[in-house]
């Protein structure tokens, strides 16, 4: 991991740090696709909240290629891949008592999602 030297501190703080990558990686999912969040129970870091694991959703936006946080937290591997906004209906997450119009949008990576056909 790069060291931030004193001469670059001011510009780095102004610019902020982005996890977006320029790698040309093909997406495994597309907007409109039905997907299921993987049932990940790692002792490491994951961006998949418990309440969406194993649940079905729909890809609504492809944000582009980003550092895969789950791998990055373990050993610094960037594992570049697409990150998507996935819509989960409240019914799917919270059962029949949830209101029909509510939904939760979660940003999830390619490695978090399986296609549903």
């Amino acid at each position, binding site marked *: *991991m*790069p*060291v*931030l030297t004193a001469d670059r*501190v001011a510009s*780095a703080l102004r610019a902020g*740090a982005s*996890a977006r990558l320029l790698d040309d990686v093909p997406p495994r999912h597309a907007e409109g696709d039905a997907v299921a969040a993987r049932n990940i*129970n*790692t*002792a*490491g*870091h*994951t961006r998949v*909240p*418990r*309440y969406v694991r194993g649940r079905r959703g729909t890809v609504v936006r492809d944000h582009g290629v980003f*550092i895969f*946080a*789950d791998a*990055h*937290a373990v050993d*610094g591997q960037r594992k570049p891949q697409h990150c998507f906004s996935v819509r989960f209906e409240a019914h799917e*997450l*919270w059962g029949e008592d949830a209101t029909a119009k509510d939904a939760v949008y979660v940003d999830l990576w390619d490695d978090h999602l399986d296609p549903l056909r």
Partner: protein
Amino acid sequence: MNGAHDLGGMHGFGPIDPDPEEPVFGDEWERRAFAITLAMGARGDWNLDMSRHARERMDPSAYLASSYYEHWLHGLALLCVEKGLLTVEEIEARESAMRTEEQR
């Protein structure tokens, strides 16, 4: 990990009611915790996601009973120990010395 940080969907925490006038830092030590965490991150010994995972590994009962920047300080201390920059004994000795100073 299935830690205490993963609160989504849990009952019992009450409504989310943010104060529109909420200051960026509630106390001076929080400003320092933020600055020290960023400064130590600049060494390049770990990345942002490793910092998040360090906070997640806090003891669950302590996590729920402490504030946002306490999580930050805990995570930073854990990473410093794991990377060999500090020892637990050094941190405890400093905490003890600061408490003694406060009591004067």
